[in-house]
């Protein structure tokens, strides 16, 4: 019992929010490409260059904000190359995505060597990180629950606020609608004079934008440094979540929270003496099990579809002439 209390508390929730945020940001980015019908396995690389250039920008200008902008710009360049190859040249998106991941790894290390003379990590050097935001009044209102809403770096809030914004975006804006159409039925878009190419480019760039933010969050928000390969598989995790959420922001949020929770929990489990190597598999195993369960348990979908087809049966009536 005591163990459970130690494990499940406010701090765990707060940790879950922290571990979720970067994956959520990059996964929301990926939702643009996913919905536009592009399988973007290159999120990892975009995130990595985002993290690297955010740090570089921050060092050179002394401003965290400009740092973030630099990170985003770098990720956008990667996104542009991705779009150029995948959309314009119709290259295999998995090949391009994996290659860009490799490129991001090699490039950041090479640049690190060229600029700082060493590889490994960039710490200090005057990196300015993003400040923690304190929500005014949170302490008074919520007491010990205040850390749930207050004290995160700005991009954490951005990540979670983006979820409803994206819901709105996909439901109520033209671009959002068109991105979905391009993914579901490109010839329908084409037939209405919408440029599939332009929309896919836009989706790729929007994806780059958020992946860049996610990277900048890693290196200026979550912590304040850059390390080789510091995205550490978060981009791949996001891809997994994207697939079983189908790019839907709400389901995406749930998936990211599930993973973030598994991550936060597994880190704590270690202190109870479970072998680290096994505990570290927990998030992946959770994701796998979720994937399999979702594939296996299609019942909720069946229920929904039955309801839909009921309505269809009713609506078909007037179509068959009964005069």
């Amino acid at each position: 019992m005591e163990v459970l209390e130690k494990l499940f508390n406010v701090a765990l929730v707060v940790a879950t929010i922290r571990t979720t945020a970067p994956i959520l940001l990059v996964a929301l980015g990926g939702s643009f490409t996913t919905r536009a019908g592009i399988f973007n396995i290159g999120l990892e690389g975009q995130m990595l260059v985002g993290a690297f250039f955010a740090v570089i920008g921050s060092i050179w200008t002394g401003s965290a904000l400009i740092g973030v902008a630099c990170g985003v710009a770098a990720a956008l360049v990667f996104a542009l190359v991705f779009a150029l190859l995948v959309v314009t040249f119709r290259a295999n998106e998995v090949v391009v995505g994996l290659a860009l991941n490799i490129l991001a790894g090699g490039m950041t290390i090479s640049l690190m060597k060229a600029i700082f003379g060493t590889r490994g990590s960039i710490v200090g050097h005057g990196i300015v990180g993003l400040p923690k935001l304190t929500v005014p009044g949170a302490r008074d209102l919520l007491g010990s629950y205040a850390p749930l809403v207050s004290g995160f770096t700005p991009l954490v809030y951005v990540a979670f606020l983006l979820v409803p914004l994206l819901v709105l975006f996909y439901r109520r804006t033209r671009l959002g609608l068109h991105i979905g159409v391009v993914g579901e039925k490109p010839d329908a878009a084409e037939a209405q004079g919408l440029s599939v190419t332009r929309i896919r480019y836009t989706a790729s760039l929007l994806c780059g934008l958020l992946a860049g933010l996610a990277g900048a969050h890693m290196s200026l928000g979550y912590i304040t440094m850059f390390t080789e390969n510091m995205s550490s598989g978060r981009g791949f995790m996001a891809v997994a979540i994207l697939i079983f959420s189908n790019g839907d922001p709400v389901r995406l949020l749930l998936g990211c929270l599930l993973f973030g929770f598994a991550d936060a929990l597994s880190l704590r489990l270690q202190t109870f003496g479970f072998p680290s190597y096994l505990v570290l598999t927990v998030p992946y195993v959770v994701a796998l099990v979720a994937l399999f369960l979702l594939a296996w348990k299609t019942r909720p979908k069946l229920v929904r579809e039955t309801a839909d087809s009921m309505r269809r049966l009713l609506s078909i009536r007037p179509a068959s002439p009964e005069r």
Partner: protein
Amino acid sequence: QDKVSVAAISGYFAQGFGVSIVNGLNKAKDDFGIDLKLIDTGNRALDYEEQFANAAKDGQYDLIFVMGWELADALQKAAAAYPNQRFVFIDGVLDSDKIIYANFSEEQGSYLAGTLAGLMAEKGSAIAKMGDGKAIGFVGGRDIPVIRNFLKGYEAGSKDAAPDVRVDAVFAGTFDDPAKGSELTLALYEQGADVVFNVAGPTGEGVMQASAAADKYSIGVDIDMCATAPGNVVASMLKRGDVAVYTLVKEEVEGKKVTPGVRTFDLASGGVELKMCDDVAANIPAEIKDKVEAARKAVIDGTVKIGEAQ
């Protein structure tokens, strides 16, 4: 005689201890004008033998420093294949007697770190920023023998000095994920550990930053990390790779040919040490500092045995 020429082979020049080695070699280069070549092995075991062959084939290097246990196999083969090439294996002792070993007693330094952290935890909130969790933490990179050796010293130090204090040890599973290091540290703080010892390379940077964020204490490793989180880093357990390589190169430059055998770098020789950070040291009761100093003496004169290094 020609200019002395040395090479160093490793897969992790970029990580804490590697940085210290590179610093030592660079210093030697500046001081003695030696030729220096760093050879990065990457992380594929398949490549190692080839890289040793490439480095040793022309006999152009007087000494080749080798760092990393994963290279041990390839190193021993190379030592047998190139009998005239002198290799220095840093941080351990292997079976081959053709190799020069620079062996570090990280468990001794860690013992002192454990002593310090344990005593602080025992005092608890009497010390600024401390709580009364009666626990201390340890964040390792990967769960590998070298890191276990740190942990062994740390636990022993804590047990001997403060038997009631619990040691919570966790591993990030990677040396490359500072975010994970940070999360692990925050989790340890929550569970009452107020001092966390980082032995995790770049992942450990996350530990240091977490200590600043949570305003708790951390202990750095390998190099002096007091500046990474001023006011929160209590001490750094220095593992003076720089001293070791510098000394060996110096001997070589001075014409004393370094010969195969084991060189030990321990507390006594100054190869490892616990360096307190001045800003925090002011908050720590003198009695604790005295006990740490006593422990240091005990380790040096052999009254305290920490068991064999792996």
